[in-house]
């Protein structure tokens, strides 16, 4: 996620930083990016005895500001298991909304949904809810507080990396302040514009979808009963995701031009655009928080690793947020990398060795590329009013809707229960 407001690096807490300066000469793992994946990885690795330093360009205060800004995440069941594994889930579960049911509908604005729809109910699988809606304002501070409390983790906030150099035994990172830090491995959790990747000479492949996502939260009259809705409409998909109380998070996409115009509208006009798309099943509604736009583009790093360097999350693969799979894919990276490194540590291997990092890349690459292509294809198939495609979609949904085994497969996929799961996503210890 891009920070809302660009900010100048400033010293948040100078006395504390002075202490860090004296202590930071030696650590095992350097993580660049203190958003969500970075802290999650730091906590997982510190738990297995690694000394971790997390570097973020933004001051801590700004990263922790906990006003509701409308951002939220549809976390798959497996992702919440990782949060449990790193010890932060208990602090989050009270503010998380379980997703009990997902309804997928092919609709055209003003026409109502087509007679075919898919319905995925968590009661069909034994693991429980398919996932939880977690708000950014809760997740971020809980992760940052856990970092602060952990003895094995140092945080450097308001510090920008200007260069990185790798050699046979480690990696040295130089900060804008002139300070140099050394570790055995550098992990880039610094988003789709990853400087860590660029400095390592890792190129990217990607394209623009010609669409922009509009994101907001709404407060509505009727309860949502924990049901997530996905409507596929010609301008792009619209998702209604349940938050705690009578609130939902809305994600919809439009062409860049339309999105720009809609986002610039007054609140009343914005709501009048949203209303026909949203429908009336939740009663009247109003905005609950700020509005955001994200231009949709795919950005895949051509390699997930380089000597002594690994990429995680959007730095490795920025996908279309169509199914809320961006953070979940990042969490899978975190779980897989933490497991590969932990196993290597227990064998006495050098955790920054290419042989070790290649295992992470092999594990994650297939999954990430498949996800990127699947969401891309899904979007192209559904963001279309072509009558042939529309018929195909409706028939496809009818088939899936009537085949319990196929439906269960989709539910398990949504819950993140498929594929070669890392231990942390199975609810096991590292």
């Amino acid at each position, binding site marked *: 996620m891009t920070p809302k407001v660009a900010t100048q690096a400033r010293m948040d807490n100078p006395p504390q930083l002075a202490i860090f300066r004296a202590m930071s000469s030696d650590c095992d793992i350097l993580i660049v990016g203190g958003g969500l994946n970075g802290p999650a990885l730091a906590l997982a690795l510190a738990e*297995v*005895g690694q000394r971790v330093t997390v570097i973020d360009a933004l001051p801590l205060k700004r990263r922790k500001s906990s006003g509701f800004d409308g951002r939220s995440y549809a976390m798959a069941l497996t992702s919440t298991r990782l949060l449990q594994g790193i010890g932060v889930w208990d602090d989050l579960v009270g503010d998380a909304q379980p997703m009990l049911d997902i309804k997928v509908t092919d609709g055209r604005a003003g026409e109502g949904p087509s007679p075919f729809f898919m319905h995925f109910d968590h009661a069909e699988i034994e693991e429980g809810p398919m996932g939880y809606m977690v708000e950014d304002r809760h997740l971020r501070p809980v992760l940052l507080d856990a970092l602060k409390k952990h003895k094995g983790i140092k945080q450097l906030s308001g510090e920008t990396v200007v260069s990185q150099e790798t050699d*046979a*035994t480690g990696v040295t990172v130089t900060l804008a302040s002139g300070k140099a830090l050394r570790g055995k491995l550098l992990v880039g959790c610094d988003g789709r514009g990853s400087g860590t990747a660029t400095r390592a000479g890792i190129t990217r492949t990607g394209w623009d979808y010609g669409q922009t996502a509009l994101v907001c939260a709404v407060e509505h009259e009727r309860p949502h009963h924990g049901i997530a809705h996905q409507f596929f409409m010609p301008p792009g998909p619209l998702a209604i995701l349940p938050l705690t109380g009578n609130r939902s998070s809305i994600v919809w996409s439009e062409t860049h031009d339309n999105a720009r115009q809609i986002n610039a509208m007054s609140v009343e006009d914005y709501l009048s655009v949203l209303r026909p798309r949203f429908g009336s099943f939740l009663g009247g509604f109003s905005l609950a928080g700020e509005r955001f736009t994200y231009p949709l583009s795919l950005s895949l790093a051509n390699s997930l690793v380089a000597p002594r360097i690994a990429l995680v999350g959007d730095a490795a693969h920025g996908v279309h947020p169509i199914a809320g799979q961006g953070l979940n894919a990042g969490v899978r990276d975190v779980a897989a990398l933490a497991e590969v490194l932990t*196993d*290597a540590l*227990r*064998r*006495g*291997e*050098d955790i920054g*060795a*290419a*042989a070790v990092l*290649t295992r992470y890349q092999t594990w994650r690459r297939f999954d990430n590329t498949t996800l990127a292509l699947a969401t891309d294809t899904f979007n192209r198939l559904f963001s279309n009013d072509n009558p042939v495609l529309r018929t195909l979609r409706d028939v496809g949904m009818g088939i899936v809707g009537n085949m319990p085994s196929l439906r269960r497969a989709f539910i398990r996929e949504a819950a993140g229960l498929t594929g070669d799961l890392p231990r942390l996503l199975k609810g096991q210890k590292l």
Partner: protein
Amino acid sequence: MQAPQSTVDPSEIAKFEAMAAEWWDENGKFKPLHMLNPCRLDYITSQIAGEFDRDLTQPTPFKGLRILDIGCGGGLLAEPMARLGADVVGADAAERNIPVARIHAEQSGLQIDYRHTTAEALAEAGEQFDAVLNMEVVEHVASPIDYLIACRKLLKPGGLHVCSTLNRNPKSYVMAIIGAEHVMRWLPKGTHEWSKFITPDELFDLLRDAGLDPVDRKGFVFNPVSWSWKLSDRDLSVNYVTASVKPA
């Protein structure tokens, strides 16, 4: 940890550095060994942890253990053992491997005692170890029984001996000689002499004859789909590994 002082002739260092880089390049000449290494380490670490009641989830679990790696090469096993906290001696009969291994350990900040010597000479000198790693060596020696007796002498009572080699059967001929040496060219032709391969039962008999108690054996199985090695309880048809203990 203080890196040991190198005793290598400075003019030779560049050459040895290049050789060390070659040993440690997982896509280079020693690729097959690098591919097998995680699997070998899984077996060795779990056997040592089991024998000496060590917890692998703790840092430096092998602290206080003295381990000998016979046929250490560039240090592919010795370095992980040192990283796990063991006091490691690496021995190799090939003299040129010693400075190569020393330089890499120094680069890695590890303290390892590398020596150009043999198991027999170390036994003669009365050296004693908690564990002896004897990986992919026994199929190359002239007299396996004499060699294994030397390994037993090197162990303290209750010490652990881990020994891996290749099975002798038609499949191992196809896989290890034709496959690895002629088709895949993973190993230079003539690396192995099939007639010197030893069946697991023969090895257990040899270990007993040498005065060791065999306690475990497992297969190293190559999976061509995942392109990696796995430990197997049942399939010891080509590469396999054994654990034996010197009676207390």
